[in-house]
Every structure is written in structure tokens, then in C-alpha cells.
């Protein structure tokens, strides 16, 4: 009897322990990568050409999708609010509400998730394929540190680009909100602008942009980590992309929660 209880406790520990250990291994891997990236950044030692290529690939090519997302995000906020705005005649709140929500929360978060889906997953797949086809070994055989040559440029590019794309996205989302406001909630452009400019502060923008940079860092680290640790051929690449997107989304939501508390 006592033996049976002991075994089932053992099984329980094993069942809980294995995923926890696996999680710890991934988190440890990401932290190690973080230190190795920082190590290459102070003083800066990385490949400039590679950085330029990535800035272009990750940033410029993401503009259309980001603009589209941001425009409709701004619009949706106003559509949701329109019912109450009309009911209570609260037209003077629309510009403020849209600006506050977009700048501080919805903009960075949605664009971060979008960026993770568009750029992060692509990055994981690319690095994973390089592992599978021995390109990483090829670099190391030529004494090129893959972290310095491949990862640091990608991490930098993702932080910079998500930051810049969020600025662009913020502007487009506000334009979208103003436009939808005039069409759907009878809020004139002028009153939208007054409400927006009097109540939304630079601090709100900064709050959101700090988040964007942190989200960029999270997407970068998770996508690079899962890409560079791919095991087991093409199937492994698929699994890694999946894990990377899930981890990035979790990371974004968690850090958003913490940052919202911590930032003014």
C-alpha cells in the first residue's frame, strides 16, 4: 500500500517535473542568449552589412501589414465606442480615448504580436533551416561566431524596427480613429483633434514606445533562441516556429502586464 502511494507520488512528480525542467531549459537558453548578445554589444562587435540587410528585410517589408493593422485597430476602437458616444453625447472623449488606448496599450501590443507573426516566425524558420543544412556549422568552421554574425544584427534590427514601426502605427491608428469617428460616430475632425491634443501627453507615447522596444527584444530573443536550437530536420523547424510564436506572445503579454505597472 505504502509502496503504491510512493509510486504514484513519484509519477506525479515526474509528470509535473518534466515540463517544468523543459521550461527551465528554454528560459535558461534564452537568458544565456541574452548575455551572449549583450556581450557582443558592449563594446559593439557585429557585422554591419548583415544588420543593414536585416533592417531592410524586417522593417521596410513589414510596413504594409503594419499600416493595415494599425488603421483598422484605430477604427475598431471608435466603432466599439460609437454606441456609448452617441448615447451619452460624449464626443469630446473620442480623441482622448482613442489616443490614450492606442499609444499606451493596443498599438504596441497588437503590432508586437503582428511583428512576431510576420518577422519573428520568419526569423526562426530561417535560422532553423540554417542549422539543419549545417550552415551554422559552416560558419563556425570558418571561426565565425554565429551569435555575433547572425543573431546580434537580427536582435538589433528587430528592436529598432518594432520601435519605428510602432511610431508609424500610432500615427496611422490615430488617423484611422479620426476617420472612422467622423463617419460612424459623428465626431468632427476638429473636435477629435481638440480632445486628442488636450488630453494625450508625450508620456503616453513614450510609455508605448518603451513597451514596443521591450516587445521587439522579446520577439528577437525568442525567435533567435528557438531557431538556433532546432533539432531534427524540417519537422524540427516547424516545431520551433510554433514554439517561438507562442513564447513571444506569452512574453509580450507578461511583460506588458509588468510594464504597465512599472512605467508612469
Amino acid at each position: 500500500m505504502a509502496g503504491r502511494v510512493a509510486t504514484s507520488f513519484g509519477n506525479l512528480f515526474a509528470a509535473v517535473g518534466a515540463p517544468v525542467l523543459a521550461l527551465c531549459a528554454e528560459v535558461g537558453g534564452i537568458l544565456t542568449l541574452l548575455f551572449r548578445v549583450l556581450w557582443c554589444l558592449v563594446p559593439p562587435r557585429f557585422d554591419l552589412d548583415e544588420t543593414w540587410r536585416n533592417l531592410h528585410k524586417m522593417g521596410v517589408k513589414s510596413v504594409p501589414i503594419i499600416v493595415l493593422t494599425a488603421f483598422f485597430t484605430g477604427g475598431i476602437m471608435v466603432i466599439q465606442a460609437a454606441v456609448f458616444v452617441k448615447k451619452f453625447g460624449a464626443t469630446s472623449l473620442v480623441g482622448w480615448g482613442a489616443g490614450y488606448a492606442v499609444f499606451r496599450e493596443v498599438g504596441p501590443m497588437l503590432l508586437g504580436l503582428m511583428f512576431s507573426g510576420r518577422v519573428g516566425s520568419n526569423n526562426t524558420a530561417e535560422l532553423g533551416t540554417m542549422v539543419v543544412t549545417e550552415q551554422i556549422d559552416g560558419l563556425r568552421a570558418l571561426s565565425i561566431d554565429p551569435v555575433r554574425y547572425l543573431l546580434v544584427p537580427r536582435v538589433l534590427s528587430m528592436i529598432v524596427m518594432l520601435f519605428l514601426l510602432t511610431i508609424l502605427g500610432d500615427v496611422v491608428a490615430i488617423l484611422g480613429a479620426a476617420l472612422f469617428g467622423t463617419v460612424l460616430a459623428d465626431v468632427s475632425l476638429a473636435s477629435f483633434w481638440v480632445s486628442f491634443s488636450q488630453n494625450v501627453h508625450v508620456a503616453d507615447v513614450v510609455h508605448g514606445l518603451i513597451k514596443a522596444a521591450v516587445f521587439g527584444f522579446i520577439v528577437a530573443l525568442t525567435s533567435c533562441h528557438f531557431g538556433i536550437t532546432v533539432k531534427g530536420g524540417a519537422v524540427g523547424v516547424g516545431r520551433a516556429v510554433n514554439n517561438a510564436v507562442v513564447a513571444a506572445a506569452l512574453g509580450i503579454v507578461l511583460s506588458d502586464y509588468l510594464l504597465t505597472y512599472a512605467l508612469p
Partner: protein
Amino acid sequence: MIRCASLSLTLSHRPVLHELSWDLAAGSVWGIIGPPASGKSVLVKTLCGLFTPQRGTLHVDGVEMTRLPEPARVDVRRKMGMLFQNNALFDFLRVWENVAFPLARQDPELSREELAARAGERLRAVGLAGSEEKWPSELSGGMKKRVGIARATICNAPVLIYDEPTAGLDPVTTSKIYDLLTDLRTRHASTVIAISSDIPALRRFVENVLFLHQGRVLYRGPEAGLEACEDPVVYQFIRGLGEGPL
């Protein structure tokens, strides 16, 4: 040139190389054969310092590699040119840039024109003139192999390692590739290690053979002595018999 003594390597908690000792004289030509997953690729990657063995020593040109930190391995790796089993062509670089890549790392002073000229020359030698501007994804399997060979040999390194240089190629191309490898070898008197599952073609090319099975050496010596080897695994493998321990 290369000396391994009692090398043991464990990867993901599984022993892959076991107490491996091997001595390669400068200028010798070795073939590594063995069943799949016997550790052939891992062994040659260990030689250029991509894996660090847990036990044993590895001397390359007199330098002990296993205790050397990663940055200090540069000089040793300069002495080696390697063709990987999957070619490892960088898909973000054009064919000629791939070939010129090791050269550019070795000598940053070289201009782009010079690099292109040297790469073009090497590509002509492997029969790929005209493919300079292509991307690796536009090449056939055999073409990729030859680009890989061009890249492995462009620095005229004293040690050349070819992991499956003829896998998936027809007999004519195979013999052309071995002619090319022989030509390169005699011109630069390099030490050569070749892994192949095409045993007859490989045996025509090499002088010595290392037979690996489950990370252990079953035969090490002149190619001609392989027939006389008593080990049942070696016996079955080189004759391609269906019956036996494998």
C-alpha cells in the same frame, strides 16, 4: 598532421565516439567508411573543433585542440577546408560569394574584384563556369556539391575534409569529382580525409581507410588490407552482404 588519442565524445547524453585513436601523417589520404550513424560526420566535425570531446586529446599540427577556447581555434581551422554532408552553402550569398567567403575571411584586404576572379577560377575548375551569379537554391544537388568543393578548397588549406563528396551523383560525375580531388591533392600536397558510402569509388581514391561502427574503430590501415580484416561487421559491410551482424 592530426593525432587523436582515446577521443571520447558524448552528445545529448549518448556516446557517439568511443576511445578513438587515429594518426594522420601529413600528405596522407584517408577514407572513412562505416554504416549510417556510426559517427563519421561527428568525427570530422570534431577534428575542426565543432564538437569538444569529453576525454582524450586531439593534436592538429602540434596544437592541442580540446582545451583550446573557441576564439583560439581560428588558427587551427585556417588549416582546414571542409565540405559538409549537406553542403552548408550560405543561402543568403550568391554562388561566387559562397566560394569566396573563406578567402575573404582569411584575407580581408582582398578587393571584391580579386575575390570574384579567384572564385570564378575555382568554379571553372569544378565545371561550374557561368553559375557565379546564381543563388544556391537555384542549383541541382550535384552542382551544390561542386560549389561546396570549390569553397572547401579555395584557401588551399593543408588539410581537406570531404563529407560525402559524391552522394547522390551518377558514376560519371563521381569519377570526375574524384579526378578533381586527386588533382587538387597532388597540386598542393594536402592531407585529405574523405567520407563516402560509395566504397569502390572511394577505395580507388584513398590510400588508407578508417572503419567506424557505433563510434568505435573496427579497422585502421592501408586500403588494401581491408579485404583481410577479420571483423564480421567490416567483412559484411565492404562486401555488401545481406546476412551478418549489421
